Structure formats: C-alpha cells, structure tokens
C-alpha cells in the first residue's frame, strides 16, 4: 500500500472528514477545511478512470465493480470513480458535469467505500448526539431520516453524521461533515427557509443545511440504533429487536452492503454487526404512513433512549 505522493498534488486544500485528513482537488464544504501541509490519510483527485472498469474485479451491480481493495463506480452522464486501498479516490467527469454533482457522489458512495476499505462498519443513517452517546437512525429512502435529524437539531441536539455513519472498532461513531441534506418539503415542514441554502445539485430541490454549532465533531459511543419505517396502523410503535432480527436489521441498514461483499469484507462485517447488536439496543420504530408527526417521533426516540439507559 503506497501513500499518495503529495508532490504531484501540491496545491489541493486539506480537509478533515470522518476523522481523516483528506486532500481534495474538488472543493469540499468550507467548514471542513484544515490548515495543514502535513501527511494525508487519503486523496481525492481528478484522473483517468477506465471506461469498462474491467481491472476492478467482478461486476456487483449494473454500474459497480469491486474486488478486495478496489471499487469502480460509473454514474452515467456524471463521472466514473475509482476508490483504492482506503487511500485514494480518483474521478473522471463525463461532459461538463458541475462540481456539486461530483462532490455529492465523492462524499457519499466513494467516501463510504473508502471507509469500508479501511475496515470500518458503516451504517446508512443519521447519527444524533443525545447526552454523551449517539443514536443512529436508519431507514430506507423516504422513511424520514433527514427530517428527523433536522428536527432533532432544532430541538437542541447535535448531529454527528448524515447518511454515512462509520464506526470505530470500539463502537464509536466517527463525525462526518458539518452539514445535512434536506429536501424542500422537509425543510418547509420544519420552517427552514431554503432560498439561501446551496443545492446538492442544481437540478434537485435538495439542499445542504450547514450545522454550525449543531455539529458534534467528537467521536462518541453508540447508545442505540433505531430503524425507522412506516405502517398502516395509526399508532406509533417501538419494538426492541433481539438475536437474529437485530443482526438482520444492521445488515439491512449497512451502507452499501453490495460494496462490503464486493470488497471482500463480508465476514469481518458480519462479526462487527454481531458485536454491535450485542452491545447496544436495536429498536424498530414504526410511524403511521399517513401524516408525519415529527414531534411525536422525536419524543418517542428520546423517551425510548432514556428507558434503554435506565434498564441498561
């Protein structure tokens, strides 16, 4: 494994993201800037990425290839990406794609793959600081994760990570970027004006909300994992999952499980899921699919966490 040679890459600014010192020639959010010229953990740079990706092992999806240590991602009409050895992300833009689109996939899928390559268990959810621990809220697209995080933030909680939640071996969550992504309608529901916010991509009505003081930049232990979903009942429900159900829930809400498998990390990953499930409660939360009573959801999670602590 080679450290990237900084001499071929002298001008690019430094950033601190997910506990890593990164050098990137794509502008990342300014709040993550780091004044340094020392050693880097990983680099993000423009370069050639082969069109078919055949040197990157087997196809694990229509647009993804992977083998141990290497992942290739092809986002049609946006860019091709190569993520190697937990050290390097190379991108090749297609056409005149803007930097927002590049950044979106670099900070999501690519950095997620890089953290998996570095041996982290990465969950797909939002990490919310509650007291001296963190609740990780997972759920499928549209279950209300970001709305929940933003509303928790309004209620005075800090956010540790949005979307990509990497954990240390000790079960601590590693802080991400001081921003969360929010759709127009979620912002409206929470009374957040979007006219001054930057869009994640010019074409999408999805915005980046800077967290400021509401960002927690310290690793903190995970207190519980919540899995959000909706159901037809008009009542909220919370059920602690045990045994295989808790394990399955963590597997299902792994960040890009497909990558984990393709990168040859499946067994280590299952062990890490098992360890986490034995250490913290995994709770299935269901909310009525009609209407979205965000305050009730917040109260339910805060109340449940309190109860888990008392019984722990």
């Amino acid at each position, binding site marked *: 494994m080679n450290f990237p040679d900084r001499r071929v890459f002298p001008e690019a600014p430094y950033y601190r993201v997910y506990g890593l010192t990164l050098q990137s020639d794509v502008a990342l959010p300014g709040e993550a800037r780091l004044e340094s010229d020392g050693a880097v953990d990983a680099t993000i740079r423009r370069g050639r990425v082969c069109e078919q990706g055949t040197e990157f092992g087997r196809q*694990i*999806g*229509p*647009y*993804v290839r992977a083998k141990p240590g290497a992942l290739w*991602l092809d*986002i*049609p*009409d*946006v860019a091709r990406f190569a993520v190697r050895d937990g050290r390097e992300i190379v991108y090749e833009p297609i056409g005149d794609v803007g930097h927002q689109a590049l950044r*979106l*996939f670099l900070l*999501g*899928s690519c950095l997620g793959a890089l953290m998996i390559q570095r041996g982290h268990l990465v969950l797909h959810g939002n990490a919310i600081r509650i007291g001296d621990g963190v609740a990780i809220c997972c759920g*499928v*697209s*549209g279950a209300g994760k970001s709305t929940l995080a933003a509303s928790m933030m309004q209620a005075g909680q800090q956010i540790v990570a949005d979307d990509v939640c990497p954990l240390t071996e000790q079960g601590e969550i590693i802080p991400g970027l001081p921003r969360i992504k929010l*759709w*127009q*309608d*979620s912002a409206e529901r929470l009374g957040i004006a979007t006219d001054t916010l930057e869009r*994640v*991509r010019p*074409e*999408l*009505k*999805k915005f980046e909300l800077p967290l400021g003081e509401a960002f927690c930049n310290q690793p903190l232990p995970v207190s519980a994992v919540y899995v959000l979903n*909706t*159901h*037809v*009942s008009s009542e909220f429900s919370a059920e602690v999952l045990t045994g295989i159900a808790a394990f399955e829930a963590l597997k299902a809400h792994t960040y*890009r499980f*497909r*990558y984990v498998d393709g990168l040859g990390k499946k067994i280590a990953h299952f062990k890490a899921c098992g360890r986490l499930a034995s250490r913290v409660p995994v709770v299935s939360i269901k909310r009525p*699919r*009609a*209407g979205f009573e965000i305050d009730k959801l917040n109260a339910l999670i805060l109340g449940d966490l309190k109860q888990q602590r008392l019984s722990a």
Partner: protein
Amino acid sequence: MTPKLYWLASYPKSGNTWMRAFITNLRNETDDPASINALGTSGIASDRALLDAFLGFETADLTTSEIARIRPEVFAWKGAQQAQPTYHKIHDALERVPGGRWLIPEEQTAGVLYMLRNPLDVALSYANHRSRTVDDAILKMGDPNHRLSKQTKGTQHRQVEQRMLTWSQHVESWTAQTGISTLIVRYEDMLHLSEETFQSVAAFLGLPSDRESIADALRKSSFNELRRQEDEEGFHEGPRKCANFFRQGQAGGWQTDLSDAQINQIIADHGLAMRRFGYLNADGSPRVM
C-alpha cells in the same frame, strides 16, 4: 438463458392489484388467502428502494432523466442474476428512455401482461384514488405530461417519477409494440369471464392453469376478500387520503356516476382506443358491458 422478468402493466385503477392478489394466491400453497399487505409479486418497477439496492448509489441523488436512463439497466442486471421468474407491477407508459433503450429490458423480459379498463370507469376510480374531482381525473387522463411521484416537488417519494402520457397513449404504448410477447386483458373480462381470462393469464405467466387452481386463487382474491382485509388491517399500498383502495370492483359505474358532458369528454379524448378495445358501439356511443 431464459428471460425471467414478467411485467404486470396497466394504467392505475385497472385491476393490477387484483391481478397481483390472484397471482400470489395461485403461487401460494396455503389454505388461507394471501394478505394484501404481503403480496408475493416482486415490487413495482418504480420502487426507489429496489432500484437503490441494485444500483449501489442512490436515485435520490440523480436527476429525473438520469433515473429514467438507469431503470432498464437495473432490471436487465436483476433479471440476469435471478434464478426464478419475478412479476413486477408497472404503471409507466412504455417509452424509450434517454440513451435509447426501452424502459423495460427486452432481453430479460419473459412477457408483458397488459391490463386495461373502460376509461369511463377508470375516471371514476382514479378520482377516488386521488381524492380529487372526476373532472380532474379526466383532465389528467388526457394530459400527455401526466406523471406519478413527480420529482419536481422537492419531495422524497418512495417511488421514482413515472411518465404516464394520456390514457390512450398509455394503452397504445404497451399494446402497439410488437417486439415483446404481450397478453392484453380487459378488466371487464376479468370480471365477467373470470375463469377463461385468468386461465389464459396463468398459462401466459407460466403458472398452474388447471381449473381447480384457478378457481381457488380467484376465491381467495375476490373483491369481498380484498375489501374485508382492507377494512380490517388497512392496505399499505393504498393512497393515504382516500377511504378505500378497493372501492367497488365493478364495471359500468359510469352509467350513473358520470355526467353526459364527462362521458362526451372522455370519448372525445380517447374514442380511438376505446373503439379498438370494444368500449364503443358502432355508432360511437359507449357500450354497456
């Protein structure tokens, strides 16, 4: 390799869910009717979670045209990986997506079952489904730009955007193409000629089509059964606002519930397709079925 994907295609409110309940019951070996909240067909073609799971990145980060472009590739990949046939509901009109491919991958498609229903009745049912007026439903059915789960609103829908075209264009898009093996069935025949219609469907889909199996599956997916379950447990696919997804399950409601002006408007908009599928008499008046 034999193609593994079957498509259950229709405009909304044209018997698709009923068909899925029938297929699930036909494939199940249990004595009890299948739950409407666990229909064993394999997810709607516009399901965001399904697309994301195969993609390895998120449709939420893509533009509408990028999503349209990747949809056939996802299903081509999925179809090539699976050992058993799957049955996917789809409400989109059949169009070529950016990049030039058909929305459904031809090489992995085993067949298309296209269901259609008298648009006079669709209008009534669609209005109820959308919790809007009948006139609004008629307008949507005549709007070439009508889309479901529109992405322009800045909402994270559970489904990706679906282009519907007009009702007539929808019918035309699925029934005029000749490259893909297609069985066309009318909702009215599902109702009035149940046995033979469902038998031909089962044979087309490569499922058991003996009389006994068909009759048993039909019993377990009867309108009364579906409605009973919806009343007791709710239906998670139903629209959040309207009272019942399974409304009447009948044909001909238009005779009492549509005004003459509404009937005339629908015939003006969709007369050609209506005539082609037997919904109009020789004199152009709507046929009572």
